[in-house]
C-alpha cells in the first residue's frame, strides 16, 4: 500500500497540482487568478509527460561514451511544444484581461456580469 503511494509519487504531485489548478479556475472570480489556475493546471500535465519519459537510471538522451540507458526524449519534445502553446495561451489571456479592464474598469467576473446585465 505504502509502496503504491510512494512508488507513484510523481502521479500524486500531478494530481494535486491538477486539482489545485482546476479548482482555482472554477472558483475564482478574478480573471488573472483564473489564468494563474489555468497555468498550474497545464503545468501538472507537463509534469505528467516529463515524468513518464523518465527511464530508471537513465541519463539525458545525448549520445556519449559509456552511457547506454537514456530517458525517452519524445515526451520532452512534445511538452516543449505544449509549453509554447501554454505561453501563447497565457499571453493571449493576459491581453484579453487588459482589454477587459479597459472596457469594464474591473477584472472581477461578478462585476463584469453585473455591468452586462444592466446594459
Amino acid at each position, binding site marked *: 500500500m505504502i509502496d503504491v503511494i510512494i512508488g507513484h509519487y510523481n502521479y500524486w504531485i500531478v494530481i494535486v497540482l491538477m486539482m489545485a489548478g482546476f479548482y482555482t479556475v472554477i472558483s475564482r472570480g478574478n480573471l488573472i487568478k483564473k489564468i494563474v489556475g489555468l497555468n498550474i493546471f497545464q503545468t501538472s500535465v507537463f509534469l505528467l509527460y516529463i515524468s513518464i519519459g523518465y527511464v530508471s537510471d537513465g541519463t*539525458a538522451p*545525448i549520445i556519449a561514451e559509456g552511457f547506454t540507458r537514456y530517458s525517452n526524449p519524445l515526451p520532452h519534445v512534445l511538452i516543449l511544444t505544449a509549453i509554447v502553446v501554454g505561453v501563447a495561451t497565457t499571453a493571449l489571456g493576459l*491581453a484579453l484581461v*487588459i482589454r477587459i*479592464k*479597459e472596457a469594464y474598469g474591473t477584472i472581477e467576473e461578478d462585476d463584469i456580469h453585473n455591468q452586462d446585465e444592466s446594459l
Partner: protein
Amino acid sequence: MKHNLILRLIAKYLFPIIALFAFYVQFHGDYGPGGGFQAGVILSVGFIFYAMVFGLKTVEQAVPMSLLRVLASMGVLIYGGTGVASMLMGGNFLDYDLLSQDPVSGQHLGILLVEAGVGITVSSVTLMIFYAFAGRDMPADGEGQ
C-alpha cells in the same frame, strides 16, 4: 530605476553575455540540449532586462515594433521556406537530406535554418508580447504604472 547605478552598470555588462549565451544555445541546438525556442526566449530576456533598467523607450528606439513584426514573419517564412525548398528539390516537406550534396550536411544545414527561423520568431514574438503589455497606457486610476 534610472538612478540605480549598480543596476545600470550590471545591465550594460550583462546584456552581451545574455545575448552570447542565447547564440550558444541557438547554434548548439543540433547537437545538444538547446535550440531556437530556448535561444529566442533568452535573447528576448536580454532586451526585456535592458528595458526594465533603461526604460521601454530606449529599447523601442533600437528595436521598434514594426521591425519585430517583420522579423516574426520572416522567421516563420525561413522555417516554411526551408521546407518548401526541400520540396522543390524533389523530397518531402522538411526533408533536409536533399538540401545539400550529401544527406549529413543537408541535415545540418536544414536544422540550422529551421532553428534560426524559430529563434528569430520566438525572440521577436516574446518581445512583442512584452511591448504590448509594458507599453500599454492603463486608465488613470492609479494602477498599472
